[in-house]
């Protein structure tokens, strides 16, 4: 039962990315910085879950006791770093959606 909550959370997160991506196309991140932050967090969480699934499928700790667990913790550390990096970028710079918009038109 508890596991199904993980499943539901994963799908709700993925579903929430759909309207957020659409909004990112329409407006600019600078106009709605809170939205930009939520979008960034949502993307990073979605990516983390995706990477974790790949680790479980290809580097399960049962078969790869050292490498599997090592990569799990490496992923967690990297996700933490990415969250900090995204925060820094959104605060001190123009933000992810704005960067993509600018880079696309460059």
């Amino acid at each position: 039962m508890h596991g199904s909550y993980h499943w539901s959370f994963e799908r709700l997160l993925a579903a929430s990315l759909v309207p957020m991506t659409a909004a990112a196309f329409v407006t600019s991140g600078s106009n709605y910085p809170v939205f930009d932050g939520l979008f960034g967090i949502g993307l990073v969480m979605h990516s983390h879950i995706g990477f974790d699934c790949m680790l479980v499928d290809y580097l399960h700790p049962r078969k790869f006791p050292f490498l599997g667990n090592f990569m799990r913790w490496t992923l967690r550390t990297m996700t933490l770093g990415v969250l900090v990096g995204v925060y820094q970028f959104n605060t001190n710079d123009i933000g992810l959606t704005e960067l993509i918009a600018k880079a696309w038109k460059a």
Partner: protein
Amino acid sequence: MMSVRVGIPQTLKRAALSSKHARNIALQSALVRRGIHTESLPPSASQEILNQQRLKRPSSPHFTIYQPQLTWLSSIANRATGGALSALLYGFSLAYLFAPGTFDSTHIVELIAGLPEYVKYAGKFILAAPFAFHSLNGLRHLAWDMGKVLTLKSAYRAGYAVLGATAVSTIALVLM
């Protein structure tokens, strides 16, 4: 095959009718003659031995012989595109975290602006195609999670729709 054979069974047979002590001595001597070495292991070593054996076992061809089908091709493509896009996000974010001076927006936009046109178009295509496919196939996945398009026929139809929409979206994004 009625001939007498040498070895442990013969030794045991001979010793069977004598005492247990004599049988053990006969067994030990047979072992020494054969040169068998034994090692004492704890029960916890079983998992490690099993893993080692599994690594050495041959595996039947699977990935190399399975007929290419929309089902599994779209599935692995979804994973590959998602992984690639996330790797890009992670790479950029970590790069900005450790070297904000080099990777800030002004530098990046300047770098891109300085590239030749065809490189820019190629770059846009390389980014747009995986993004479009992953997003559209993601919608197909969410539809499955809601219980829709689960029959083989409808899954294939939805898959072809995703491919078509990906092509259109990629062109639209590249031209934006």
